[in-house]
């Protein structure tokens, strides 16, 4: 077997304390039951042990992964201790952070995330993120962010670019820098049919150009995904590494688990209930990795359309995120990305002057 590592993305619930206007994840849901969690961890442990894996990765996603609370995660830690001791496990969590308030939550989250790495999400200037209880999302998130910093967390930010973002490119960049974000992932808004917020490929191209200018003027000091990846590709010719824009070797694969135990190749497929692999109650992980859907991303990346293969910027985007492919197999953002890459060609790229966030230099 060529596979060397199997990563788990666990969605313990799709419920959320917020209702962001463009969310794809929020659905009627339950909390992943203890029985199902145990089944998952036992099977993950059996599979990784059987194949001699020494490293693992567990990423908590949602919904809001802090919602299940202390009892759920205490049980997870028991299971981890019992069944996954052979693995050196990296941890992460995608959360709106707002529930990181009381001592009990702080303590359990710190135990679940010993690497102290969390990804939050804030829209500082537009009310796209709304709390169910009517409170201020931004204020709650900032208060929690302060506590997370105090507790030693590296905080990555995810920012969803929408139409209105074009008015605040520099402001948003510096807002994230000024709250002490360790890095920022900029992600275009997809499949949201609202004239005020809908982003076109051309908008994305313009946004990226403006953001690159701000980043460059700031001496590239805040690590930005996917810019760092493209920076490395541009200046050193190394392959891109970010899932969306790379062809990943088949040595590492991910499986996303829904609260009902359904399995998907990535959280975004789960959002859309596409390419479902099966259910953890009915499958072993040997069966999961043998399922064609489990390697659908790699398969699509290996069979990029002729138009992409002939494109001078193919190495930058590799046909983009497969969930954004149109009927021709190109990303829906193609036009905007091309215009941005053309712009990059015209830039004089300066040395970055700090260690890069992405994979280490291989020279």
């Amino acid at each position: 077997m060529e596979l060397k590592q199997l990563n788990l993305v666990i969605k313990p619930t799709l419920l959320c304390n917020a209702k962001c206007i463009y969310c794809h994840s929020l659905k009627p849901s339950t909390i992943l039951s203890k029985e199902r969690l145990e089944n998952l961890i036992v099977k993950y442990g059996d599979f990784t042990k059987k194949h001699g894996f020494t490293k693992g990765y567990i990423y908590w996603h949602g919904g809001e992964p802090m919602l299940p609370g202390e009892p759920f995660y205490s049980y997870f830690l028991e299971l981890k201790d019992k069944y996954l001791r052979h693995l050196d496990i990296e941890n992460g969590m995608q959360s709106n952070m707002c529930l990181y308030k009381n001592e009990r939550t702080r303590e359990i989250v710190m135990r679940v995330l010993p690497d102290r790495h969390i990804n939050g999400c804030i829209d500082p200037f537009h009310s796209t993120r709304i709390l169910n209880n009517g409170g201020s999302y931004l204020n709650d998130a900032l208060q929690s962010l302060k506590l997370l910093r105090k507790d030693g967390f590296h905080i990555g930010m995810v920012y969803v670019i929408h139409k209105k973002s074009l008015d605040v490119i520099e402001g948003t960049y510096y807002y994230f820098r000024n709250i002490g974000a360790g890095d920022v992932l900029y992600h275009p808004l997809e499949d949201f049919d609202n004239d005020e917020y809908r982003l076109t490929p051309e908008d994305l191209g313009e946004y990226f150009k403006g953001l690159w200018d701000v980043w460059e003027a700031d001496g590239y000091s805040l690590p930005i995904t996917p810019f760092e990846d493209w920076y490395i590709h541009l200046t050193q010719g190394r392959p891109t590494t970010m899932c969306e824009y790379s062809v990943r070797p088949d040595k590492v694969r991910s499986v996303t688990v829904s609260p009902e135990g359904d399995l998907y190749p990535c959280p975004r497929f789960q959002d859309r209930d596409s390419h479902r692999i099966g259910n953890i109650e009915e499958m072993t992980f040997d069966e999961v990795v043998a399922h064609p859907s489990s390697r659908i991303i790699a398969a699509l990346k290996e069979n990029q359309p002729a138009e992409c293969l002939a494109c001078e910027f193919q190495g930058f985007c590799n046909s983009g995120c497969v969930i954004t492919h149109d009927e021709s197999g190109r990303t829906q953002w193609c036009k905007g990305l091309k215009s941005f890459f053309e712009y990059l060609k015209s830039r004089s790229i300066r040395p970055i002057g700090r260690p890069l966030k992405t994979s280490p230099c291989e020279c």
Partner: protein
Amino acid sequence: MPTYNIPASLISSYSDEMVIIRSEDPSELLRAVEKVDRKRLECVQLIGAHPEPAPLSHLDPTIPIEILMKDWEREAEHLPLYSNAAFRNPVSVLIDASPGFMRAVNTAVSLRIETELIVHQPDEALVRELESALDLYLYNAEVEVPIEFFHSLLLAFCRNQLDDSLWTIQHEDPARDRYVRDDGAIVISPRLPVEISGSSVDFLEDYRFDLMAQQGECSICRYFTQCIGYFKFPDEAYSCKGMQRVFSKLKGAANEIKAFQVENSQEAHGHCCADEECGCS
């Protein structure tokens, strides 16, 4: 461990702490220093450039001397008494950046005495004077000593050290700097007469997030990581446009230095990239 800036008369109350001892009288400073373990003494601070500094020549030469100039117009003439020629100790002067302060700066740097500027909320005319001081520091080849806060900020920009804030550089970080007033009350500094409490360790972090939540000028400022709202105190409505020019000039100079270093490094070592952690050569 915090450092307490204390009047010499209160030395016995701070026997276990890191201290800066201050007095207007050089003889009193000398007597107070004799009561302190050298390891706990950061420096002595002479209030005003006293015309008779001779007692300080008996200090251990490793003890830095800071001269806080009260009235630099009157005291500037005494500065030569504190030059390297007169003292073996490291000497620096603290100059309040009020109108006309450049004369004191010029005197100090010509005597090769390190200078630290005490800055409040400068108006446009004073910002222009600060820019002149910055030009002097950056571009006058005869200036051989640091002028603070410019020097430390320039280094922070050059090294991408985002945690070196103006609060630390100006010795006003509530987590580590304490100013004990003559009446014994403990505040952050004379500029920031905020009484220290148990939660003062979090003062800056709380302040940072208050400013971010307000979404005012600071929240999207290019220099907030170095400044953390330093100039928004005491008047929160103060506009930082002028000070942003000062920061911009410093950052531009840092970028020039970095580019020069990288060019030289590439020429000298053929280094493939600017990744400082990269082991390649």
